């Protein structure tokens, strides 16, 4: 949240404003980070109990940036310790049309969401709608976030001063797609989606964001939408943020709550409020309260779940590119009137370059 995703993503693709990079030559530069942590999780999901005890490199990422004048490109390669696999997180090329307009094609990050999608942009260890995971992933529900993350498509971006507008055509945003772009696609579920957003800077550190995504399922009832708005206010030492997201997926959003395409219709409301106070040039504390409410129709039955998460984190920057983040968070929720609780303690070491 130090820099809203909408702004950084758009500017990286459309302008020569500086971003993190180490120049290799005039055309090629790179940046990245190493994120490792120790975390302990206690989860009670009804009668089931689980613990998580993780000490690992959570993520390593190297971003390669190419500058060929009006054409820029970026390839983000990442390794995630949880899955033990390397993936291409982003790979896109942008063409600068002039007057702040650019067109981007490839796999890129969604503009939706207050929280950064990378740990280098977070004040905390965990994300707002992550309600905990245990070692075997049988009691914890993991992330419940309904907002788009990274998808393939084409995006048109307009940067006007500190304001950023974007509209894109995507292959999907929910995970329902079979990698087609609409059509029958051999009988498989072939979705396509649209995303639009606007980030407006009011001055004095206040920024308002409004955006949404809509996905159309061609063969199976997997239409979905997600709307997101957030407001951030940054003063010298204080940063406030508030966010509300609404969404509905006929197939149910991909989360630990489970889904059965065509039989689940899930409606979700998520919100968070956070404040960060920097009490010195290298230290800050962050408080966050987040809420996630889910109502689903599974066949003839209704299913309800809601979660309230409290997070307290401390961020200690050792240098400009090395920080230690400690966090304690507590999740209190119910799933169909069954209690769900999770306590997470974590120490994270983050190195960026």
């Amino acid at each position: 949240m130090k820099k809203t995703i909408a702004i950084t993503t758009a500017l990286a693709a459309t302008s020569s404003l500086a971003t993190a990079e180490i120049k290799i030559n005039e055309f090629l530069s790179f940046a990245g980070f190493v994120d490792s942590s120790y975390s302990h999780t206690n989860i009670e999901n009804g009668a089931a109990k689980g613990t998580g005890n993780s000490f690992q490199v959570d993520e390593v990422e190297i971003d390669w940036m190419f500058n060929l004048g009006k054409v820029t490109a970026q390839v983000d390669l990442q390794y995630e310790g949880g899955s033990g696999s390397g993936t291409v997180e982003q790979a896109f090329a942008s063409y600068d049309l002039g007057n702040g307009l650019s067109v981007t094609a490839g796999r890129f990050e969604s503009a939706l969401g207050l929280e950064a999608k990378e740990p280098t942009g977070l004040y905390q260890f965990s994300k707002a709608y992550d309600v905990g995971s245990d070692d075997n992933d049988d009691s914890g529900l993991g992330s419940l976030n309904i907002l788009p993350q990274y998808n393939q498509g084409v995006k048109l971006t307009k940067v006007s001063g500190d304001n950023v507008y974007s509209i894109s055509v995507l292959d999907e945003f929910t995970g329902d797609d079979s990698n087609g772009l609409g059509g029958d696609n051999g009988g498989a579920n072939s979705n396509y989606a649209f995303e639009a957003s606007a980030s407006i800077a009011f001055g004095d550190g206040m920024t308002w964001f409004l955006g949404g995504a809509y996905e159309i399922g061609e063969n199976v009832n997997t239409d979905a939408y997600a709307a997101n708005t957030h407001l951030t206010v940054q003063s010298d030492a204080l940063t406030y943020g508030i966010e509300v997201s609404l969404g509905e997926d006929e197939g149910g959003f991909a989360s630990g709550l489970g889904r059965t395409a065509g039989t689940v219709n899930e409606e979700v409301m998520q919100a968070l409020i956070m404040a960060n106070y920097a009490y010195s040039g290298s230290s800050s504390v962050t408080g966050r309260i987040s809420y996630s409410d889910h109502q689903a129709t599974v066949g003839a039955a209704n299913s309800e779940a809601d979660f309230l998460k409290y997070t307290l984190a401390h961020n200690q920057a050792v240098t400009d590119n090395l920080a230690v983040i400690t966090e304690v968070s507590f999740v209190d929720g119910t799933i169909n009137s069954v209690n769900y609780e999770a306590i997470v303690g974590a120490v994270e070491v983050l190195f960026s370059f």
Partner: protein
Amino acid sequence: MLLKFSSASNLIYFKFYFEPPSFGWEAFFILFYPVYDPVYFLLASIWNITDSDCMFRSTSLTRKYLLCATAVLFCAPALHAANIEEMAAQIAAMEKRLARLESRLAINEQKTKEVKVQASNASGSVANSTTMGILSNSAWRNLRWTEEDQWQTVVNGASIEQVHEALGKPPRTIKSLRPQVDLVYFYEISIGDKHGLRGKVSFRKGKVIAVTKPDFSKNHSGR
């Protein structure tokens, strides 16, 4: 440009059908105009020219030649003046060109000087020699930050654009993990060389909030 002549009242006058006039034929006639009357009366008194309505229609070739020769004689100073103006314009253009060449030369001399500064700072190490080889062969890398004077305008409150103007774009940039710092520019010859020149500029909301200038006082014998 069309010119129309008439000898009415023993004067040649002309009309410009297009405005504004420019230098060329027009200039010749402008210059010719004030000397025509004395020439005409001089010749008329000598050769009894009577066709005053159109002197040039005289049937005498001798008169025509003499008349033209006299006209040329009187016009020579005026033509000379036109040549001077033309030459002045040429000199002005050459001076501008010279100024441009001098400017380019100054820039190249500055770049050469900066590379020499780097070479003097990085002497004694194979790694540094290699680095300097890369640096001196990398035209893209702007090294004006190695000049102490360039840092004078890099003060708290300066914009990113002003820093680019003064120091050039940095070889290394990071998004700071410090809570009140957004971006940090590192100006350094080599990350591993603790004795080389290195400076740092920190930004928040697009403005400079902290500057660490290179230590220009040590290890700069070559400057």
